[in-house]
């Protein structure tokens, strides 16, 4: 059977405020925003019940595609195409870590169409959700992944309710870079850290999700602060094949080496937890140390020391090793 996108109404929002009003007016189950469309369209095409709204509010024409630099850092509009981020000389100079991470998203064709905001707020790629099982994110009250096939897309750091990992590549890099996100909603605008954006699984506006953006809110901008002089960064993504796949594990690292020894280390894992996973033990381990192969391995081990892979269902302990390998390779790539 051919799989078609069900009929929907496409509404061109005139402004961010207009989009917020429309989302509020239509209600949580009835409308979602669209920009690049690479995720929401595939969910609708696959007939995921709770992800098939009657209306899509198009925010791609609201002037949110920009990369601007000011004295403090770089502003990136949420609907900026991922390939524009990868190719931006501003980003490559000020935050090469982000350019590397975004450059490893999916495929070139998908990076051309998808947006940076869409990558950060993407829905999980859990096979149960994507096959329309009635899981937490699809109107049900069970996590099939926690007890079933959790080899690829479920947490090795525990969880509650939904155990599916945040699969994006941009968010771990932004988290390591200390980025902030601006969210506009009916109550106004707020600018928060990535840790605040991703507190973990909770129910937000009736939806089970890992981030705090409500159904009638719009993430409009990321701000990447300038990194202190002497900061080095590295990105490494472990995936099954050389392209296309989500991370089996990834690592984004920033560390200041101006004194010769590490300081202000930031180590964030992707693809292994329901949110970008800050590996605090690895950060503490690194601070004060000179870089060496032994230190890379020590940091890798520290990053996964509190891992609790799933033991129900098929299990995913092997990805603990991969997360460790991602950290080692990200550190080796520091530049």
């Amino acid at each position: 059977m051919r799989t078609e996108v069900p009929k929907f109404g496409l509404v061109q929002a005139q402004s961010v405020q207009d989009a917020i009003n429309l989302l509020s007016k239509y209600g949580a189950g009835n409308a979602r925003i669209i920009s690049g469309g690479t995720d929401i369209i595939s969910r609708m095409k696959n007939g995921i019940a709770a992800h098939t709204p009657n209306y899509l509010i198009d925010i791609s024409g609201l002037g949110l595609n920009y990369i601007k630099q000011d004295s403090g850092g770089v502003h990136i509009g949420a609907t900026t195409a991922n390939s524009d981020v990868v190719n931006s000389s501003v980003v490559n100079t000020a935050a090469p870590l982000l350019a590397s991470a975004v450059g490893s998203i999916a495929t070139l064709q998908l990076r051309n169409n998808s947006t940076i905001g869409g990558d950060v707020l993407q829905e999980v790629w859990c096979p149960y959700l994507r096959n329309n099982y009635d899981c937490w994110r699809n109107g049900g009250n069970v996590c099939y992944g926690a007890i079933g096939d959790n080899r690829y897309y479920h947490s090795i750091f525990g969880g509650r309710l939904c155990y599916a990992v945040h699969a994006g590549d941009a968010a771990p890099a932004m988290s390591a870079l200390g980025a902030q996100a601006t969210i506009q909603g009916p109550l106004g605008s707020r600018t928060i850290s990535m840790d605040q954006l991703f507190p973990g699984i909770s129910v937000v506006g009736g939806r089970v999700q890992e981030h705090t953006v409500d159904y009638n809110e719009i993430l409009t901008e990321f701000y990447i602060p300038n990194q202190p002089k002497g900061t080095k960064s590295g990105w490494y993504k472990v995936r099954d094949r050389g392209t296309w796949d989500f991370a089996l594990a990834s690592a984004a690292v920033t560390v200041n080496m101006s004194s010769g020894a590490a300081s202000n280390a930031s180590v964030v894992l992707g693809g292994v937890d329901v949110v970008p996973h800050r590996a605090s033990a690895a950060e503490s381990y690194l601070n004060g140390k000179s870089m060496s192969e032994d230190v890379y391995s020590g940091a890798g081990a520290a990053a996964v020391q509190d891992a609790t892979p799933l033991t129900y269902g098929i299990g995913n302990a092997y990805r603990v090793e991969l997360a460790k390998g991602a950290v080692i390779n990200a550190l080796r790539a520091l530049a």
Partner: protein
Amino acid sequence: MSTPSKFNIIGNPNINRRDITRKVTGAAVYAWDINPEHIGVDGTVGSGSIAYLGVVTCPYPRAKILKIDTSAAEAAGFVTLTGDQMPPYSYLSSRNSLALPRTSDITMYPGQPVVAVAALTTDQVEDAARLVTVEYEPLPYILEAEEALAPGALQLYNGGNSPAGGYTNENGIAPSTINIKFGDADAAMAKADVVVGPLVYETQHEQHYEFEPYAAVAQWTNGSLRVWSSNQWAHNEASSLAAFFGVPVNNVTVSTALGGNEGGGVLGNGLGDKIYQELEVVTAAMAQKTGTVVKGALMRNNQAIWASARFPMKSYMTIGAMKDGTMTALKATVYTNCGAIGGSNGDDAISDFYNMYNIPNVNIVGNSANTNRYHSAGAMRDVGESQGHFFIESLVDELAQKLNMDPAALRRQNLRGNDASGNPPVDPNVNQPYSSSAQPAAFDKAATAFGWSQKWQGWGKSSQVNGPLRRGVGIANLNGAKGGIIGFGAGQLQVSPDGSVQAFTGLTDHGAGGNTTFALEAAEALGLTSFDNVTMVMSDTSLTTDTIGTFGSRSTRACGLAFIAAARDLGRQWFPIVAPKLAPNTDPKNLVFGNNMIFDKTNPSNGISFTAAAALLTSPMKGSGFFPDPNNVTERTTGTKFAEVEVNTETGAVRVVHFTSSIGIGRVIFAKGAESQVRGGLFMGIGETLYQELYLDPTTGRHLNPNFHDFRIATIMEAPDQVDALWIEQNDPVAPWGAVGIGEPVLMAVAPAIANALSNALGGYRFRTLPISREDIVAGIQWARANGTL
């Protein structure tokens, strides 16, 4: 031509694919692309329009259909079709009877279609499907073959889970169990110095997932059926449709896409699944019911529901040998998971076990079992021999490890190949000689090109260490049952007075360059050094005669033999017209085609150009060629493959660095096409070894990855740095110009070569299950670390 050849055109290294431009420019019309203008209807709603087919599928592995309610869909103006409305048939009696079950029937696999719907647009089809409700009673189910055959197992069929009557497959009736036995395996095993096993090897369930999904367009006109579809065997499809609908076969016309000539008969690859026709049966039934043209297609998420599959196999293997490496005994018990209907007792895989090496004592049992895992065991590029090669060539590698012998040397020592005077080896089961073998020449050529003796460092030693990167090398021999003739062949060659040639074959080009190969064969048979004036007419039952389909790596051989016979028949008619124009008393029986001439083989200067000879004709002249199914000959395709892999021991990432393939092709016909087959087979092999698996949720038995994202195939990023495509032209005597088929042999032995190389990279850890996932690689790394080899 770069080198002088005794042939007119075959083997010319400069020949390019004839269809490449229309394929890369998008001009080729595939079955799904067929629109009203292609088939002569005017597009008006009603009789002139094309309606679209959709299906409602059962999510459960096994369920009783309690009630089918199509009233809402009908009330909304859609057409629905249930099994109750199909022509009468005995459910589960054949593949096509499985097309749509009826109320109170029991569905047999997850995703089984239950109701068909039709609408005027593809998105309305989705709406129509959503309006159909089916009530099921989910029933217990079986997913594994051994479980199905265990005492007290749930009985899926009244006759048990391994029907005593056997299965009908494309080769006829195959028994449901098989026992190959010669010598005394138990006694030899008891006397062996070293016994390895029983070891358990397993392979996965895979679907074909060609880039072109299945599609069919069906039209009924006054009791005659016309079908344009994605198929590898149009004539068989016409016979099946005629039988199902109870009409004479001459009232059914089937083509591959638009068919008719080589530009019309395009197929976006057919890896075996496109010899079946469930989709066509239901599409035609819907066309009959609606009275309009109906187009049906199965998109990615449903591509497994009416398809055969790479069947999961499990094998318990034991091998015995003497200290000097002489193999003495082989025992195996094989389980084939045949899915809901039809299948295999593993005979193809088992034939690989006992043919590969000179092992005098063999006892192998093959068991088949029906399960609720998937539709049916059946054709998928090499039908069981990817699995068979993985089993035997993994086991032999483990024997080399136990003996602490160079695994290449052990294989070379025991290899079943030509004897010292070049006589081909004997198939030890049927006790008849091979038509030809490329061994041991293929082995030696590959070993030298790969540089095995420089790369192999011994057991437990990676071939190269570079920080966290470990390289390993592996070898696997090829001895496969595909590439032979399989049945009869037929074809026709027609020459026109202007010297142009039409070549007729019932075969289709399933995407691998067959139309180029076939045109080369037509030109060669007629002694032409160019095929520019040769037009292929193929892929269409109204224009060609059946020559059995394009599968089993048979088409190069089948087409060439038919065209050689057709050229002979053409000469019988044409040469008596030509002879009077040559030297006095020229005997037409001495005339032959060659070098763009028709000439006297007793006096080559006594000849006339092909074009001038054609001008002697007053109307087109056609020669018909036929050859019968040859008996009393064992046809095996032989060769050797080497792989060098690199494992990142921190991330488990695997890269195939270098791959050497050496195959006894008999004779190269289409040189670039043959090399392209090696690369294509290698890509598919890399995918099957490392990624590809269609998996079910362990608790509900439902599909979890019916899509190209999670059913991972190798991408261009997985391309090895170096691929060597080597050939042995051993000139097979029962093949046209000596050429045997290699479309499936290019895939066989890829998996064990890579698996053995991975083992070498990781200190001797063994990978006994396909695919070798990242999780398995990590287990190997941890094992090697624990054993001090990493």
